[in-house]
């Protein structure tokens, strides 16, 4: 009687098996959703937003797909979360991590049905994950010493990452772009100094890496279009007639002539400010905020190139590459650090005019200009390139490299199988299940490519039984191939993160035996 009213109205509670089922099914549904995007022959998804405009995104980036979903199932949310973290932390492998976690849960479901306690499964999974990680770290290759080889490693990783994306047609071109860009960073992971500009038109092949810095802005009217040996002042200051910042100040006048006087004073103040800025001995002025007509005219008169409304990232980056400081006051011209570059000019990309800074002081920065047929293509290309850049920059830090194409999974599966045979007790079932889940990744890659996965996996297994095998799935020819020869590589850091986060997420969902959902908050109905 009283128990019926334990919770508030509309709150629901699911217990034991039902709760477990609900979370398994939710998690697997999410994994199945992104499963088809895995691998070089993975398919894309169209996402249509419910917001105004119903904008459309076409992507096969796992993190992007999952981010845009509205999910109600709590277990599914865990998976979405791990994919997001994978994206933030290493940038790639966002689909793999979800698929692996989903497969782990699918296997766990079978074990639970066979009356194995979830806690036993968890401890088995933990042992297996540890063993798999050791197996991987023994097989890594590290070419940090050899710069030439390392570069080719990076190139391979970039190509492997890009091959599953829209850029796969021109993957060599883009891999080169990405590697060049990352090598310029010289070991820092600060991807901010790589700028990506998207311009519709042309084909993907026309994309290029520019050594300088490109700002998507126009040059003011009547100002020089080309400056050599530019001295740049980067500023963040209001260029309208400054508001008086003292609180409560207001202008009170009693006649028209007074208004004119004050206006004159304002103008005078503005002119003074511009004079001060010009007094720095600059010939280019970049401001984050708007420059209004009057000061623009003054700058034009002085022959100074003034660029207004450069966005925040823009000026930070510009300040970074030109070595200037972002200024907001202009009273001490001698101590403000100015930025320098060899040449500023206006260039045309497609139909748009952009401002190009070349010969900048800091060699690290560069700009990648993406060209493509439509905005959707460009957006997707940017995401793919971002993935590749992230992976590369992480690889520069942790230079350990693995082969790709399902090779690491097979290596891990083999070791985990060994372990299962050695382990006494019920845990061995869980360990075995872990190895099956690992194998499901190459299986999915093969399935997505329309190949006979059962046949291929069996062959792979046999190949891997030999010591030092390099066998993996060659999706292009549809057979088992030598991954070292084909040049398919992946970063160790990505694989390790996939393995650990997937296990962690599966563990978390397995431990659940009850779901309590509070009554949804009532929204004010404004319709």
């Amino acid at each position: 009687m009283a128990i019926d009213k334990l919770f508030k109205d509309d709150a629901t509670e699911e217990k034991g098996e039902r709760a477990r089922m609900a979370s398994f099914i939710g998690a697997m549904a999410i994994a199945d959703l992104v499963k088809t995007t895995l691998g070089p022959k993975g398919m894309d998804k169209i996402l249509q937003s419910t917001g105004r405009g119903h904008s459309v995104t076409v992507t096969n980036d796992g993190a992007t797909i999952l981010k845009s979903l509205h999910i109600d199932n709590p277990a599914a949310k865990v998976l979405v979360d791990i994919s997001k973290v994978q994206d933030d932390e290493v940038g790639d492998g966002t689909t793999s991590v979800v698929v692996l976690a989903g497969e782990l849960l699918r296997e766990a479901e079978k074990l639970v049905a066979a009356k194995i306690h979830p806690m036993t499964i968890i401890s088995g999974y933990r042992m297996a994950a540890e063993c798999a990680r050791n197996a991987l770290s023994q097989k890594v290759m590290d070419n940090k010493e050899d710069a030439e080889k390392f570069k080719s490693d990076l190139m391979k990783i970039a190509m492997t990452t890009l091959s599953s994306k829209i850029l796969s047609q021109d993957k060599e071109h883009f891999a080169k772009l990405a590697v060049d860009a990352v090598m310029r960073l010289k070991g820092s992971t600060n991807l901010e100094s790589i700028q990506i500009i998207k311009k519709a038109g042309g084909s993907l092949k026309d994309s290029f890496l520019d050594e300088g810095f490109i700002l998507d802005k126009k040059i003011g009217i009547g100002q020089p279009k080309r400056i050599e040996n530019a001295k740049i002042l980067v500023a963040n200051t209001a260029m309208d007639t400054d508001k008086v910042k003292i609180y409560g100040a207001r202008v009170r006048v009693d006649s028209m002539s007074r208004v004119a006087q004050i206006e004159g004073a304002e103008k005078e103040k503005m002119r003074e400010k511009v004079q001060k800025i010009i007094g720095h001995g600059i010939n280019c002025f970049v401001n984050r905020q708007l420059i209004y007509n009057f000061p623009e005219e003054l700058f034009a008169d002085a022959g100074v190139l003034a660029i207004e409304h450069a966005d925040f990232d823009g000026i930070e980056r510009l300040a970074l590459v030109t070595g200037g400081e972002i200024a907001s006051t202009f009273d001490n011209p001698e101590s403000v650090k100015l930025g320098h570059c060899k040449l500023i000019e206006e260039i045309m990309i497609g139909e748009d005019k952009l401002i190009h800074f070349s010969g900048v002081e800091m060699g690290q920065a560069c700009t990648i200009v993406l060209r493509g047929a439509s905005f959707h293509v460009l957006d997707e290309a940017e995401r793919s390139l971002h993935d590749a850049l992230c992976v590369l920059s992480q690889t520069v830090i942790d230079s350990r490299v693995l082969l790709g194409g399902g090779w690491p999974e097979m290596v891990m599966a083999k070791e985990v199988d060994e372990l299962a045979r050695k382990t006494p007790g019920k845990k061995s079932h869980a360990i075995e299940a872990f190895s099956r889940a690992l194998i499901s990744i190459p299986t999915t890659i093969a399935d997505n490519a329309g190949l006979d996965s059962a046949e291929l996996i069996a062959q792979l297994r046999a190949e891997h039984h030999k010591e030092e095998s390099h066998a993996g799935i060659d999706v292009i020819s549809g057979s088992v191939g030598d991954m070292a020869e084909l040049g398919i590589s992946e970063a160790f850091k990505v694989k390790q993160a996939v393995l650990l986060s997937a296990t962690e997420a599966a563990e978390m969902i397995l431990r659940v035996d009850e779901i309590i959902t509070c009554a949804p908050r009532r929204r004010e109905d404004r319709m």
Partner: protein
Amino acid sequence: MALAFDEYGRPFIILRGQEQKSRLRGLDAQKANISAGKAVARILRTSLGPKGMDKILQSPDGDVTITNDGATILEQMDVDNQIAKLMVELSRSQDYEIGDGTTGVVVMAGALLEQAEGLLERGIHPIRIAEGYEMASRIAVEHLEHIAQKFEFGVSNIEPLVQTCMTTLSSKIVNRCKRSLAEIAVKAVMAVADLERRDVNLDLIKVEGKVGGKLEDTELIHGIVVDKDMSHPQMPKHIEDAKIAILTCPFEPPKPKTKHKVDIDTVEKFQTLRLQEQKYFDDMVQKCKDVGATLVICQWGFDDEANHLLMHRNLPAVRWVGGVELELIAIATGGRIVPRFQELTPEKLGKAGLVREKSFGTTKDRMLYIERCANSRAVTIFVRGGNKMIIEETKRSIHDALCVARNIIRNNSIVYGGGSAEISCSIAVEAAADKYPGVEQYAIRAFGDALDSIPMALAENSGLQPIETLSAVRSQQIKDGNAYCGIDCNDVGTNDMREQNVFETLIGKQQQILLATQVVKMILKIDDVISPTDY
């Protein structure tokens, strides 16, 4: 319904609008209450012990929490029933007082209620049951003191403390790296503990989390971590021997509370005002510089101009730092919080050996580390983990571990865990029951049975045969007179808890029994529930 008539047969109104209220009286009320309390306990029962399961809780806004911390589950459960709310309160007070054992206390209360139901069936008056429980709880608490052991540790020997924290952590999802987390928790507590006064101020330990990395990357920082970055992207990211000015006033022109107006009516006034304004900014920055500060931490924002001036004068600054963090920084660096620029003096500056900005992962996340502070007593535990939920859960687990370590420092008596203390108490209570004449005897026995339910739940959750295991352990305790036999949850092979190193704090256990008894007494005394019916 309650209806009374006067001498003419007209009804008195006793309860206003009584036909709209539902009402339960007497035995019915008690039974309804008991079943509600039991329902809450049943939810938590499966979360008890090292093999306990987790719960997913979905909040009204759709956020997901995964936890097996009793207090957290109950807090977010959104219960409507009055008695269930009492149980929530019960778990919360255990959390406030002890910090650990929040699940156990609710399970215990549930078991006591269940036993009481049986006694009520037999026609025993609820007050007599309550009194019996009271006596029994006193026996149990005394017995606990009897079997408790003193526990020696020092600044150099923290191993026993680590072991205790590990017991607490082993029931959480973080048990994979319980050893390192336990060490972190103990070191943190030892860093802030005042061993003379046996007091620990947990406010000095800040637990900060950031998504990403592995659980193993969790670290203890002897200093403060603030989730902020320098106000100007080009300020230095690494400051040694920083002298920190801690300000609670914005770098902006003053805004008096009183309403006022500054009238500008001539050009001259306009210009003087402008100059004054510029001078104002200059003065503010100059004041900070004059007292020798090399870092400014401000609770408010800066104007663009002030920001650049700071940058220009080579004075790094951090803006929008929260009040709590500001206080911690002040404690750690030994500085004073300064509310006005005029009051800045060199003595009020805080000192830190190293301030640096650190970035994480591929996103632009940056955090500010303030290390090697003048007062090394403030520490931060920086939690990393695969996703947001793991981090939240780790934070809660660390909080529990911190509380346990604090309790031991306060009172170094411990009892052994794994249900051994409960079984031992239950034996003692039942032995004592025979000495009491009267109906209370039944209640005391029932209390003993209720104590058994905790080891029973432990065994159940660990996948053991509950009744068989429990009776085996019980008989072993009686036969050998060994009060340290418990349930072997982890399948180690021995059920002597001394060998397994499973301890809990004495005060924690005592508090559990006392709190559970109190709440049950309160519930038993209710014999009338009047609640408005819906609509």
